[in-house]
Structure formats: structure tokens, C-alpha cells
């Protein structure tokens, strides 16, 4: 099970560079007034960054379907909680 390689190091550094660049982009975009699109762009960039961290740093990419289930089910529940609560508070 031990297999540290130069490949995993270069992938790690590439992901790191992408994360720093995406942080710079999201900060720069926040200075431009796009109205509602500001929130959409910021959340999209955050989700790309979060996916990079999960896929490569937490190596979800090479994991079994079981681990993918453990990773995705709580996110589905979170969406359910947020939309369920909104449905209540916004339509009350």
C-alpha cells in the first residue's frame, strides 16, 4: 500500500498553484460589481477549489464507491436542509 511517488508530489504542487490562482481570481472579481452574479461566481470558484482539494489532496479521485458515498451523502443532506429551511422561511 506504500507508493509515494514523484508523480503525487508534482500533482500536489500543480493543484496548489491552481488553488492560489483561483483565490486571486475570486478576490479580483469581488472588486467588480456584477450584482447577483458576484455571489454565483464566488460560489462557483469556491466549489472548483473545494473539488480540487477533495479529489487530489484527499485523493477522492482514486477512492472506492463506498468512500465516494461517504463524501457525497452528507452534501446531499446539507442541500436538503438548506432548501427545506428556505422553503419554510421564505414562503411563510
Amino acid at each position, binding site marked *: 500500500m506504500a507508493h509515494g511517488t514523484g508523480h503525487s508530489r508534482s500533482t500536489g504542487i500543480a493543484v496548489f498553484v491552481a488553488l492560489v490562482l483561483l483565490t486571486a481570481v475570486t478576490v479580483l472579481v469581488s472588486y467588480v460589481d456584477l450584482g447577483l452574479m458576484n455571489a454565483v461566481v464566488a460560489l462557483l470558484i469556491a466549489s472548483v477549489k473545494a473539488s480540487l482539494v477533495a479529489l487530489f489532496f*484527499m485523493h477522492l479521485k482514486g477512492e472506492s464507491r463506498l468512500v465516494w458515498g461517504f463524501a457525497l451523502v452528507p452534501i446531499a443532506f446539507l442541500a436538503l436542509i438548506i432548501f427545506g429551511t428556505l422553503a419554510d422561511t421564505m414562503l411563510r
Partner: protein
Amino acid sequence: MSGHTGEHADPAVAFESAKLGVWTFLATEVLLFGALFTAYTVFRMKYPEMFRAEHAKLDRVLGAVNTVVLITSSLMVVLGVDAIKRGKARLLEACFGGTILLAAVFLCVKYVEYSAKFHHGIFPRTNLFFSIYFMLTGLHGIHVLLGMGLLSYVIVLSRRGRLSADYFTPAEMSGLYWHFVDLVWIYLFPLLYLIG
């Protein structure tokens, strides 16, 4: 199944079980932070003008600096785990030491930010935005502290010669937790500092 002198009867199975255990814990963490994210979403939709005005009081440059600090700390964890997989214990200790140092930098910046807010008379009770800001960043800060403790424990294990290319489970598992702490901040930063 028996007669081994190692840590576990079957190392591969033990490693997979530990991993599932950590992912299960992280699932509960998603929902712990999720409750606060839900509060954020509900109140942001209810009081958009207030959130817009209040979030401008946060320093987005300091927030961005802290984002880069945490991303770098995560890279150090990746390099540390990779090092021990190649049997390089000293390199693992150096990398995890770097992560702990960066975590301390993160908390120092957070301290400066909190102090500035208190100085300007902004407290958790000031308004809904800052209640949520202090709750979310405070809870996240506690996770950073816990992570520093976990990573220190891994360094102690390594110094005692307990970790090797054949057994690096504690390094891998605390690394998973640390990446999650980074992941939470990746959402906190834009939600609180950039779009309020």
C-alpha cells in the same frame, strides 16, 4: 489473522477501516458547519442590504492572505504524507512542522482581525451578520487548534520511530482532517469576506 507483531492483524483492512472512520466523522462535520451555513443562507436572503453593508467591514486582503496560508499548509501535509510513504520520517516531521507553523500564522491573523473588530465596537451580539461571522470563524478556529494538536501527535509518533513506509495511517488520517479544515475555509472566505 493472528501471530503478527505489527499494529494490526491485516494492515490493508485496518487502513481502509480507519479511512472510512475519518470520512464518517467528516460527514458529521459537514452537517455541524452546515447548520451555520443554513443560518447564513436564510438570513442573507432575508436581509440582503444588511449583509452587504456589514460584510464590507471585513478586511478581504487579510482573508485572502489567510486563504493562501491554509492552502500552503495543506500542500505541506500532502508533501509530508508523500515523504513517509517513501520512508522519510525526518521530512514528514519537517513538513507537518511547517503546517503547524502556518496554522499558527492563520490564528495570529485571525487574532488581529478579531481585535480590530472589538476595537471598533463590533461584537457577536452587534448584528446577525457578525453573530454568524464569529460563530463560523470561531468554530473553524477551534478546528484549526485541534488540527495543530493532531499533527503534533503525528510528529511525536514519527520521532519515536512508530511511522514508516509500511505504516503511516496516523499521518494519512490527520492529513484528511486537515484538508477538510482547509476546505471549510475555502467556502467561509467568499461567503463572509467577498459577497456577505
